[in-house]
């Protein structure tokens, strides 16, 4: 009996040691086997794409249960050009990086904004969309230049790039709200002369609020939406870079804009407010 017990304890101890040592060993052993390389994807016959399921019009599911949106169209095109099937893995905003790093997906096409922090843990391919801060105001009293905001009140949503951008401006009184609903209500109730947020939200909002317009369409540093790829997967990164470049040149994203975004945006918004120009220089 005692002997058996001893063996049991020994086994447990060995198991624990293995658990702590194995990751390091397997990490080196598998460093050169890339499960998400272009050839691996082609061999497998499917590409696993992380997408949103609840963000119309970028990645969502329609009432028939089919995935739709600007990002989904790109995923389909990538699948077509690789000659493989597309398998969608629905993710939330905060699990996009983990999904890549744990090999759950090959590529993330989920309204993924390029930031310096994210660049440290994953790679971004060439961008396929641009977003910036926009400012919405009453049509009857439009604000079209940043200087017009001096001495006025401005509404922002907490935690957005708009908040960070306007916080440092001394001449503007910034009102901060917790949610999108609150901030838009405040604007409608006339609490301030304008509201600043991501332009892609504002474009959709003015569609249903005809008395307002996005007077300033882009402000501050431009931000880009790009496919996310696991760090070190140069094979897929290079392929996607070429693919996005080619698709931009061919006007794919303009068609994508027309099919998926245009109907959600106000009539004064053009494809060029969101989509990169055909001759965009990706080497920048």
């Amino acid at each position, binding site marked *: 009996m005692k002997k058996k017990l001893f063996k049991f304890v020994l086994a447990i101890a060995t198991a624990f040691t293995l658990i702590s040592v194995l990751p390091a060993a397997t990490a080196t052993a598998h460093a050169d086997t890339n499960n998400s390389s272009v050839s691996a994807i082609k061999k497998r016959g499917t590409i696993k794409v992380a997408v949103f399921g609840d963000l119309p019009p970028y990645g969502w599911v329609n009432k*028939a249960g089919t995935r739709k949106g600007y990002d989904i169209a790109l995923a389909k095109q990538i699948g077509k050009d690789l000659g493989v099937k597309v398998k969608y893995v629905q993710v939330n905003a905060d699990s996009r990086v983990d999904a890549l790093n744990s090999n759950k997906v090959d590529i993330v096409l989920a309204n993924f904004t390029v930031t310096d922090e994210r660049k440290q843990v994953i790679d971004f391919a060439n961008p396929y969309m641009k977003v910036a801060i926009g400012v919405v105001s009453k049509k009857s009293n439009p604000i079209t230049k940043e200087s017009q905001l001096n001495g006025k009140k401005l509404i922002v949503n907490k935690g957005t790039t708009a908040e960070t951008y306007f916080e440092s401006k001394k001449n503007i009184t910034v009102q901060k709200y917790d949610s999108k609903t609150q901030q838009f209500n405040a604007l409608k109730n006339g609490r301030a002369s304008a509201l600043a947020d991501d332009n892609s939200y504002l474009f959709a909002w003015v569609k249903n609020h005809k008395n307002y317009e996005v007077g300033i369409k882009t402000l501050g540093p431009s931000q880009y939406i790009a496919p996310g790829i696991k760090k070190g997967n140069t094979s897929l990164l290079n392929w996607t870079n070429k693919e996005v470049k080619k698709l931009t040149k061919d006007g794919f994203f303009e068609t994508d804009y027309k099919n998926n975004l245009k109907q959600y945006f106000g009539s004064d918004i053009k494809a060029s407010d969101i989509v990169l120009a055909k001759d965009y220089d990706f080497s920048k």
Partner: protein
Amino acid sequence: MSHSGINIFFEGSNFVRLLHGLLVSAEIAFVAIILGAILGIILGALRTTKSRIVRFILRIYLEFFRIVPTVVLLFLFYYILPKNFNLNLSAEVVATLVFALWMAAEMSDIVRSGLISVPKHQTDAGKAIGLNPVQLFRYITLPQSLKLMIPATINLTSRVIKTTSLLLLISVMDVINVGQQIIEANQQQYQNGAFWVYGLIFILYFILCYPLSLWEKHMARKEAAIQNG
């Protein structure tokens, strides 16, 4: 155009999709509960053995699964372990595994407390008539402790079923995930779609869990009838 929010369910295949989502949750919960209960009974019995080491290890197992929040466990098994071990399980398998291990851990404690609450003279009597340990367990301790375990087990099962609502975090297309898709896709048309969709999800979970409560009541009544003769 004025319309009631309930129509959100009749748009396209929305209702069927929600039911399908529920089926995914129910399936995972069901398999996990069965596997977890079996493993839990075995581990619970082992926890009453004299060996300190076995008891200690099982105790650590229980505490680990009881203390670490289920969300963390799901993340750990789905995102973090595969990164280190290059082992890639599908989200449904990970979910079933985590829930089964959790169920087994908590079940083992229920079984242990049930077993030790059987009076010592009962097992002594069993030994006196020459039963071996397995027979003792099968004919003396298990039948007498079952009635003590049932309420706690039912409670645990409904907790496992309810916790399947966390599965959307690891990309399982469960009922909550589908519900959110429907709410967002119909945001323009149905401003209060969230109220209706979550309302229905509430009813669906109730339908899953309420029979368990009824069954527990039934068992308790039966038990009382036996005891009172």
